[in-house]
C-alpha cells in the first residue's frame, strides 16, 4: 500500500516553474532518496509533502489524506526536517522539545517520556539542558532531527539531513536514518550520492522540476549497465595478455596499463558474464591471475548519465 501518492503535481512561484507535473508513489516502510542538483525542485516537493504550502495543481496524499483538505491529519503523520536547520537559539534543548511535543499533540502524560526518548535516540543526553544557540552545528542538526521524530511520525521527510556535518557525525546520522527506516517511511533529499547508496532502497532523480527516474538502485544499475566491463589484473607480458583477451568471443575492446610487471586490463564486452572465460584463458597461458572483477556502474555514473540524457533531450 502506498503511504505517499503524488499525482501530476505542479508548483509555480510566479513565473518560475519549480516542480513540473511530477508523479511518484512511496510504499510503507520504504526509504527513498531524492537526488538532484541544486534548484531541481527537491525542497519544493518536500515542502508540499509537509504541508508547508499546497501545490499549484495536482494531488498529493499522505496516508490517504489529501494535503490540501486534510492538512492537520497529514501533519500528524509527517515529521519534517527542513533544509535550513531552524531551531530557536534562545531555548534550552529540552524546553524546545517540550514545546514541539505539545504542538504535535503528544498527550501530556507521555510528553516527558517522549522527549526523553528522542533526546536519547538522537544522542542529546549530555546537552539536554543547554541553550540551543550555544551548541555546535552537529548537535543543532540532531535537535532538528529530534523535533521531527517526537510524535513518532509514520513518514519522515528529511531535507539534506547530513549537510555541514563532520564525517563521524554523518555516519551517525545515516545509521540513525537506517534504523528509523526499518519501521517508517523515509524520504530524504541529498546531493551526496554515496548517501543514497548507503541508506536508500530506491532513488528518485529529479532535475529542473521533473522526475528523470524513480527506480530501485539494483534495477537502476542493471539498466544502465550498457557497456559491461571487467577489470583483470595479470602478472605476465602486457602485449600477449591483451591480444589473448581481445581474441575471446564477445569482447569489444581492451584497455591496458602496465606497472611493475603486472598488467591491468579493462575488458568491455557484450551480454553475459565472461569472467570464467577470461580466467581460464589466462591460466591456460600460465600467467599469474591476480584479480578478475566486473565493474558495477557507480551511482555517480548513473546520475551523470541521467542528467546528460535529460539535457540532450531538452
Amino acid at each position, binding site marked *: 500500500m502506498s503511504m505517499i501518492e503524488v499525482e501530476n503535481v505542479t508548483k*509555480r*512561484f*510566479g513565473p*518560475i516553474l519549480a516542480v513540473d507535473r511530477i508523479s511518484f508513489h512511496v510504499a510503507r516502510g520504504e526509504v527513498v532518496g531524492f537526488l538532484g542538483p541544486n534548484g531541481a525542485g527537491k525542497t519544493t516537493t518536500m*515542502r508540499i509533502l*509537509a*504541508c*508547508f*504550502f*499546497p501545490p499549484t495543481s495536482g494531488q498529493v496524499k499522505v496516508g490517504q489524506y489529501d494535503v490540501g483538505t486534510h492538512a*492537520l491529519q497529514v*501533519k*500528524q503523520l*509527517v515529521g*519534517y526536517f*527542513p533544509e*535550513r*536547520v*531552524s*531551531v*530557536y*537559539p*534562545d*531555548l534550552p534543548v529540552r*524546553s524546545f522539545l517540550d*514545546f*514541539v511535543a*505539545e*504542538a*504535535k*499533540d503528544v498527550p501530556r502524560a507521555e510528553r516527558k517520556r517522549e522527549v526523553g526518548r528522542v533526546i536519547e535516540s538522537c544522542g542529546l543526553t549530555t546537552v539536554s539542558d543547554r541553550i540551543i544557540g550555544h551548541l555546535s552545528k552537529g548537535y543543532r542538526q540532531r535537535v532538528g532531527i529530534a*523535533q521531527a521524530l517526537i510524535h513518532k511520525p509514520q513518514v519522515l521527510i528529511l531535507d539534506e539531513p547530513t549537510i555541514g556535518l563532520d564525517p563521524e557525525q554523518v555516519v551517525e546520522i545515516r545509521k540513525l536514518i537506517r534504523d528509523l527506516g526499518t519501521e517508517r517511511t523515509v524520504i530524504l533529499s541529498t546531493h551526496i550520492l554515496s548517501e543514497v547508496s548507503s541508506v536508500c532502497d530506491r532513488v528518485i532523480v529529479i532535475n529542473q522540476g521533473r522526475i528523470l527516474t524513480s527506480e530501485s538502485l539494483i534495477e537502476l544499475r542493471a539498466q544502465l549497465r550498457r557497456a559491461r566491463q571487467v577489470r583483470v589484473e595479470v602478472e605476465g607480458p602486457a602485449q600477449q595478455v591483451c591480444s589473448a583477451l581481445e581474441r575471446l568471443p564477445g569482447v569489444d575492446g581492451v584497455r591496458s596499463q602496465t606497472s611493475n610487471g603486472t598488467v591491468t586490463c579493462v575488458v568491455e564486452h557484450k551480454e553475459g558474464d565472461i569472467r570464467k572465460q577470461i580466467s581460464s584463458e589466462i591460466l591456460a597461458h600460465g600467467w599469474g591471475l591476480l584479480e578478475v572483477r566486473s565493474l558495477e556502474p557507480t551511482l555517480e555514473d548513473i546520475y551523470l548519465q541521467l542528467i546528460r540524457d535529460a539535457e540532450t533531450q531538452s
Partner: protein
Amino acid sequence: MKFLCVFKKELRLYFGSFIAYSLATAFLLLTGYFFYTDMVFYDLFGDFMDITASLWSYYFLDLRFITMLILPLLTMRLFAEEKKLGTIELLWTYPLKDPHIVLGKFLACLLVFVLMVLCTLLYPLLLASVLTFTWGPPLAGYLGILLLGATFIACGAFISSLTENQVVCAMSTYGLLVFFWFLTWNEEAVGPQLIGTVGRFSLFDRFEGFSKGVINSKDVVFFVLTTFFFLYLTLQSLESRKWRGIR
C-alpha cells in the same frame, strides 16, 4: 486550547532572552520619571484643581506616549524573527492552525505588556499612602492603556508578519502608530469637515476620554474591533503563503 503551546513558547522566549527585561526596565524608568514630574507639577499648581484634571490626565497621556515607544520593540520579533530563523517553517508544518499561532503570540505579548503596566500601579499606590483620592479615574486610565496597548500589539504583529527584518518592522510600526497620532495633530490642517471622520480613527484621540477617567463604551468597542481587525490582517498575511510564491 491549541494556542497555549505557542503562548508558552513565546513567554519562554521573551523571558529567556533579555528583551522583556530590558524593555520593562526602560518602560518603568520612563513612566516613573514622568509620574514624578507630573507629581511635581500637581504639587505646585494642583491646589485649585481636582486631581483627575491636573494629575491623572497628564500621567496617562505620558503613559500613552511611552507605550507607543516601547511596544513596537516588543512586537517586532513576533513573526519577523521566526521568518529570519526559519522556525516559521516548523510552525507551519506542525499540526497547528494559523489562528492558534496568531492568538498565542498576541496573548503572550499582551501578557508581557500587562505585567509591565501592573508594575506602574506602584506609583498611584505610593501616592495613596500620603493622599486620599478616588480610584475610579486612574483605573479607567489603566483600562484605556491596556486597550490601547492591545491595539498597538495587533498593529505590530501585523507589520511583523510582513517582513523578516526586525528593524524594518519596528520602524514601520512606529510609522503607523505615529500616523494614527498625527492624524488629528493639527485640526486646522485637516479642516472642519474631515476632522470629525478622521478623529474617529485616531487611536490617540480615542484614548483621551480614558485619561480623564471616562469609560465610553464606543471607545472600548473601537479598540477591541481595531485589535481584531489587525489580528485578522495578520492571519491573512500568514495565509497568503498558500497562494503567493514563498521561496
